[in-house]
């Protein structure tokens, strides 16, 4: 437990005065993600500790450097959880980094993303001002929703120092059903079931089989299982962990790993390589040597975008995220200026001009 926000603030104030770029670092579990930042490290991992957790209020507030593990453990004691099921990728992952990257796991399509659960944030903007937005209540429409804007901004608008997150009860019971089928059939089934009031909490097609997780009371899960059929998976918890943490055999490859966020019912893409489907078809992991231009073209045609998630060779620096339209680029640059006029916070982490 320690509060180093004054220290962090001081570092940012001097960097701003001297126009020195800062590279924001937490647990270093996600350094592979995004473009490389050249700058002096500002380390958040010392700023840690759970500040408030009231299980009956369904909210936890923690300093941003608090390890995700510590938060999950505190919640588990009260049979609660982070419903967006974030990946860790390493034991050192922090809650601040998780929110900054808006990383969400298998439950995302059914419960919401990290951004959906953010209730409030304290940040230090690029001028070194410590600001507080949102709060610990579920409903709050006072002022612009800066807290949610921080989710996924990768620190380019401000360093998150504290975050309040809505939490949910752990479901009474979870089972996973498996179905052998083609990708086309898997997409059809996921869509057919998602239109029915079934307690689905995760879905994944890994190339051979479709896995559907059900979470609810025991009788509800039983009833849904009868309706859906399939074969009950024995080590289901481990399966979803491997999907979430990218430890599943699919991810064991040297090829560039692309993350495609597309219309869920887009047909399987015609790209050389392997594809794993999550989130009812809306998230597709692609391992392929195909050109960025082609992959982005197909993602766009499927009403979505493509991120180069892991790039073993590191040749695509500066171009990992999907290009923005000119109009959006202008708004993004204006927002960057609004929060970080000197351009010192994680410059280039998302886009070269931010």
């Amino acid at each position, binding site marked *: 437990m320690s509060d180093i926000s004054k220290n962090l603030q001081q570092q940012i104030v001097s960097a701003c005065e001297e126009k020195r770029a800062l590279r924001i670092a937490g647990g270093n579990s996600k350094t592979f993600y995004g473009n490389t930042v050249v700058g002096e490290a500002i380390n958040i991992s010392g700023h840690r500790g759970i500040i408030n957790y*009231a*299980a*009956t*209020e369904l909210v936890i507030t923690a300093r941003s450097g608090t390890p995700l593990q510590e938060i999950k453990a505190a919640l588990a004691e*009260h049979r609660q959880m982070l419903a967006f099921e974030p990946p860790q990728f390493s034991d050192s992952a922090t809650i601040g980094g998780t929110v900054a990257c808006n990383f969400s796991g298998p439950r*995302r399509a059914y419960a919401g*993303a990290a951004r*959906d659960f953010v209730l409030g944030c304290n940040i230090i903007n690029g001028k070194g001002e410590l*600001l*507080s*937005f949102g*709060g*610990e*209540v*579920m*409903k*709050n*429409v*006072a*002022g*612009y*929703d*800066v807290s949610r*804007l921080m*989710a*996924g*901004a990768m620190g380019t*608008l401000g360093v998150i120092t504290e975050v309040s997150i809505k939490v949910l*009860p752990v479901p*009474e019971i979870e089972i996973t059903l498996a179905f052998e089928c083609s990708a086309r059939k898997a997409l059809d089934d996921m869509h057919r079931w*998602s*239109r*029915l*009031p079934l*307690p689905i909490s995760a879905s994944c097609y890994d190339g051979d089989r479709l896995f559907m997780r059900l979470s*609810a*009371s025991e*009788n*509800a899960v*039983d*009833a849904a299982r009868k309706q859906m059929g399939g074969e009950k998976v024995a080590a289901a918890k481990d399966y979803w962990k491997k999907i979430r943490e990218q430890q599943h055999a699919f991810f064991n490859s040297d090829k560039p790993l692309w993350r495609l*966020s597309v219309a*869920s*019912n887009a047909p399987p893409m015609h790209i050389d390589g392997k594809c794993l489907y999550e989130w009812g078809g*809306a*998230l597709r992991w692609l391992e392929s040597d195909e050109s960025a231009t082609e992959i982005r073209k197909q993602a766009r045609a499927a*009403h*979505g*975008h493509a991120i180069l998630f892991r790039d073993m060779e590191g040749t695509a620096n500066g171009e990992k*995220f999907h*290009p*923005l*339209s000119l109009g*959006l680029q202008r*708004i*993004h640059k*204006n*927002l960057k200026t*609004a*929060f970080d006029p000197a351009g010192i916070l994680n410059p280039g982490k998302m886009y070269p001009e931010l």
Partner: protein
Amino acid sequence: MSTLNTHAVDKQKLIKQLQHIMPARAVLHQREDLRPYECDGLSAYRELPLVTVLPETLEQVQAVLKYCYQHEIPVVARGAGTGLSGGALPHADGVLLSLARFSQIIDIDAERRIARVQPGVRNLAISQVAEKFGLYYAPDPSSQIACSIGGNVAENSGGVHCLKYGLTVHNIQQLTLLTIEGELLSIGGGGLDCAGYDLLALLTGSEGMLGVIVEVTVKLLPIPERAQVILAAFDDVAKAGAAVGDIISAGIIPAGLEMMDRLAIQAAEDFVHAGYPANAEAILLCELDGTNEEVSSHVAEVREILKISGATEVRTARDAAERALFWAGRKAAFPAVGRISPDYYCMDGTIPRKQLPHVLKTIASLSKEYDLPVANVFHAGDGNLHPLILYDANKPGELERTEEFGGKILELCVEVGGSITGEHGVGMEKINQMCVQFKALELSQFHAIKHAFDEKALLNPGKAVPTLHRCAEFGAMHVHKGELPFPELERF
């Protein structure tokens, strides 16, 4: 406010120009034609706009914005005008841009569970059309029969099912926006997230300050197989509040969880005869939904919890008719209070739920101090409190006293860690309380965000975010613990 107020607009020239953009019948400028637009749902604030326009095409809206941008004319966008915070209050020197004619449901994609709609589509109309696919749109503000989806996005509207199903921000996927320059932007995407910053979140609840929404893609959910309502009576509001925590601690997230206090119960009962226990200090309405099996087990569990929490009576609706009746009392709470008082003023604070007994006690003593009765209706699940202050606008000074009392309630919400507005927005109404909720640096950050979208400050000027000068003036009246708020500002 900026220099805009003193900027003289040539009304005749403006009308002529607007009539070039759209048919003359879509440009209202006579006093009697403008009258229906002088206020929104908060009728205590009124102002006539210079002109009201009712465009029918995207190109017309675009042309209006381009013209206003070029000539520095303020623009206030308006949906159905049901907002409760004066967010659509016209600007005396500006154009009121009504989006009422954008009322088409463009497409429902049942497979992807989304609906593409124009901003003037009524909230309830989406669910009515989606019903044939077994789907519905979850956020259900009480005004859902009349309010439009564009306004819902602008205000980030909630409703009684927020705890489980979220607010508007959780239930939309894509927006098409026109900037003040008339540039068309597509925000969000066809997938569950999009490239770049989460502008979808930033724009939701931005109260028409950042752009004009011209299309919304909402997410739809499968209609739950079954919903059931339990009514519990308590002889003490604190016990009712604690019972809510007990239900949630048991791992159950009800679809709706509403509380009413004695005065609200009595008013509702006299009005709709919902069968509420008339001598209860508080009642809880707990709606459980989901699969048939799950609802059965949760109903049994919740009944048990409520009894242990000290409920004096627990009833489960026997059939759909009784369920509707239980809800009718709650849904009619506002008009019911309207029957027992010439006027009422609805507040919209949120608080951490555990603060409920303290907050209700303080409101009761303020009620004595101001000599104005208060009925409390509470979205108990998510901490959103709607105290209704009963007053008579015809009595001199009573509206002013009511507003001051209301302001005190909101400041109390902030003091206990809550917010001045849960779902109605800041608009014109709570502009002073924004100075209590936020520090000068945060307000400056909001102004910088506004500037990033609207550098000339033409969209809905003067709303949602107070100027620091306004706060300095307001703060002078409310010196907290001897500290001068906004000390960095010059006094005037």
